């Protein structure tokens, strides 16, 4: 009995000796990350963990549709978990004023990034989120549809870009709702990100300059006209499928040959090439209204830091690594978002010299208009999004927008003292 107990104690001692000591333990960083395919996320975290053996960064992927609510719960709990999170760039001000995003002025050299990306992460001069990916939109088209209808597809020349009127007219000729074939599918068909340019193209401004008033802006004649056009795509002309809002579904509808045209992000370039090799597609610049000017969406994913993190040094290393030149090139190869770093455009000339990326670069530098800078973006977006959904089934656009603007302004009141 004695011998057994002694043996057991010795074994326990040996076992404990085998465990890593405190001095050698690593810092564990937890990230709540946008639900991109794991194959596009894991290599980035693996690269960081390899480059910084003293820290281990782990992540959980949350689907896009649930990410913001999840972050509200996590960050609202005001604990150190998670250390880092995927931050939709227009929400930077919201997280900032609510003390849910650490100021990163000392962490990043702003000069390395495009001005649009820095602006998207800043509010009143302070940088609240690190630019990680930018975005732009292209008009994808399916050559088979155009060939079958005997029509010429849109050109890649930005000077000859199609008007919305042309898209609707040509779309009507190719749509056949009874056969589930559509003229145009909009990737994020309910989100202000993608739809604000409809009003902006006609000279509309989406929110007051101080970011606190929407009445007189989002219900101005330009937006009423732009969104009435959107409504008619669904109701009168039946060019687009109503009620199809999920950005996880819309690219696949185009990929599987259900639509002649698809207005979507650059991140679909890889998807269509890899998942739908049979699809014969091309790209053209974003449309605009004939009597207006070209405006394209921009802004995308940033990285936010929880101000309550207990690992500030490791978090700083992580942010610098993830937004650094090498990793940004790798990230681009995994998922072709528009680069946020200026130097990435000079790398990969074989990619950025193609007509597609020439269009994108032109848009980012000339036609991109960022979403309004306001601490109330979360409320603004949700209320407007609901209206954009409702609009697709009919209703008086002017009345709907006026009503929504009043609701938004009521919510923005709480930011008056910020």
């Amino acid at each position, binding site marked *: 009995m004695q011998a057994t107990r002694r043996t057991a104690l010795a074994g326990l001692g040996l076992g404990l000796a085998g465990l890593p000591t405190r001095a050698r333990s690593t810092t564990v960083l937890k990230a709540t990350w946008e639900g991109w395919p794991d194959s596009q996320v894991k290599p980035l975290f693996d690269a960081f963990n390899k480059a910084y053996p003293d820290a281990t960064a782990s992540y959980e992927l949350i689907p896009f549709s649930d990410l913001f609510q999840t972050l509200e719960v996590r960050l609202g709990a005001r604990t150190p978990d998670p250390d880092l999170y995927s931050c939709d760039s227009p929400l930077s001000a919201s997280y900032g004023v609510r003390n849910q995003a650490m100021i990163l002025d000392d962490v990043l050299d702003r000069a390395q990034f495009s001005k649009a990306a820095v602006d998207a992460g800043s509010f009143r001069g302070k940088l609240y989120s690190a630019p990680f990916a930018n975005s732009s939109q292209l008009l994808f088209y399916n050559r088979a549809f155009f060939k079958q209808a005997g029509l010429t597809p849109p050109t890649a020349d930005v000077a000859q870009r199609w008007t919305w009127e042309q898209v609707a007219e040509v779309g009507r000729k190719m749509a056949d709702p009874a056969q*589930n074939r559509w003229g145009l599918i909009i990737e994020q068909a309910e989100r202000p990100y993608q739809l604000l340019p409809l009003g902006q193209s006609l000279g509309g401004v989406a929110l007051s300059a101080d970011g606190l008033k929407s009445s007189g802006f989002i219900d101005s004649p330009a937006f009423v006209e732009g969104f009435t056009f959107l409504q008619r795509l669904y109701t009168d002309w039946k060019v687009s499928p109503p009620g199809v809002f999920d950005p996880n579904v819309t690219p696949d509808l185009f990929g599987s040959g259900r639509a002649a045209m698809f207005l979507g992000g650059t991140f679909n370039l890889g998807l269509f090439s890899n998942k739908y090799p049979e699809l014969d597609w091309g790209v053209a610049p974003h449309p605009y209204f004939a009597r207006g000017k070209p405006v394209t969406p921009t802004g995308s994913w940033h990285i936010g830091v929880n101000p309550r993190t207990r690992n500030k040094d490791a978090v700083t290393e992580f942010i610098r690594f993830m937004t650094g030149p090498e990793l940004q090139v790798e990230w681009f190869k995994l998922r072709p978002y528009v680069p946020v770093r200026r130097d990435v455009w000079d790398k990969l000339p074989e990619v950025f010299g193609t007509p597609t990326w020439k269009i994108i670069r032109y848009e980012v530098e000339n036609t991109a208009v960022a979403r309004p800078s306001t601490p109330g973006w979360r409320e603004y977006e949700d209320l407007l999004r609901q209206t954009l959904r*409702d609009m697709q089934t009919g209703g008086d656009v002017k009345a709907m927008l006026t009503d929504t603007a009043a609701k938004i302004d009521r919510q923005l009141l709480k930011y008056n003292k910020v």
Partner: protein
Amino acid sequence: MRAKWVPFAFLAPALLGLFLFRAVPILLALGGGFTGTGLTGETSFQGFDNYTSLASDPEFWNSVRVTLVFNLIINPLQVVLAFLLALLMAKPGRGVGALRTAVLLPITVSIALTSVMWNLLLDPAVGPVNGLLRSFGLAAQPFFHSQGQALPSLIAICTWRGVGYWMFFMLGGLSAIPPEVNEAASIDGAGPWRRLWHITLPLMRRSFGFVLIADTAANFLLFAPVYIITAGGPDGSTSLLMFEAYRAAFTLLDNGRSLAISTVILLIVAAVATLELRFFRADDVA
């Protein structure tokens, strides 16, 4: 002597769970309805501000209206259907096994999955239900995308999933009716309708009472399908109070409003359940 505390010891874990996960959140909601949360998380006492703000908010009143209409339709519908199905399945016969499986299967599907599945099935453009309608020469329907059809569609899918569950309790009630009573009535010349009316229904009073009250509580708290499918739309036509409470907290970042709405739901459920309870108790006495 010792036996006195033993039952309490066995009850303690369940009571503790009930206290922690039911009573405490209810108390927090009741208290929280009188508070407001500042932008950086600090909470302050606001008196009745949240409630006066709700009282003057047309969106809230629309939500109350939608919730009441939804419950006035779905609760009686589910109770009656559950009873009819239980009657159908109470007696062994050909095909009853398959029918039981068909009715019970939806219970095994989570409400979230039910929502995702029916959202696809009822999709106006690519949904198989519209495909079926078209193949019969009927017009395709907008279902969740129409102000008029969204709430009925919601009621339909919730009933599809829930009715099998409530049927279980009705079956239990039916099996508790002594067969001799029915036999005696048959010998006395009572037909099936008279037996149903004068024997089955009165003896099922307790089952009806339980199912109606439990079903009411469950349906007033319905959230997932609205969140997943309609987000309260089109134009507020499916904006149930639970969804409004969620939206207040997680989208509009207003915890006080959310907790005030939760308290209103609690009060409505308590009032309706009390009325239902009194109705069935009064019958009991009679």
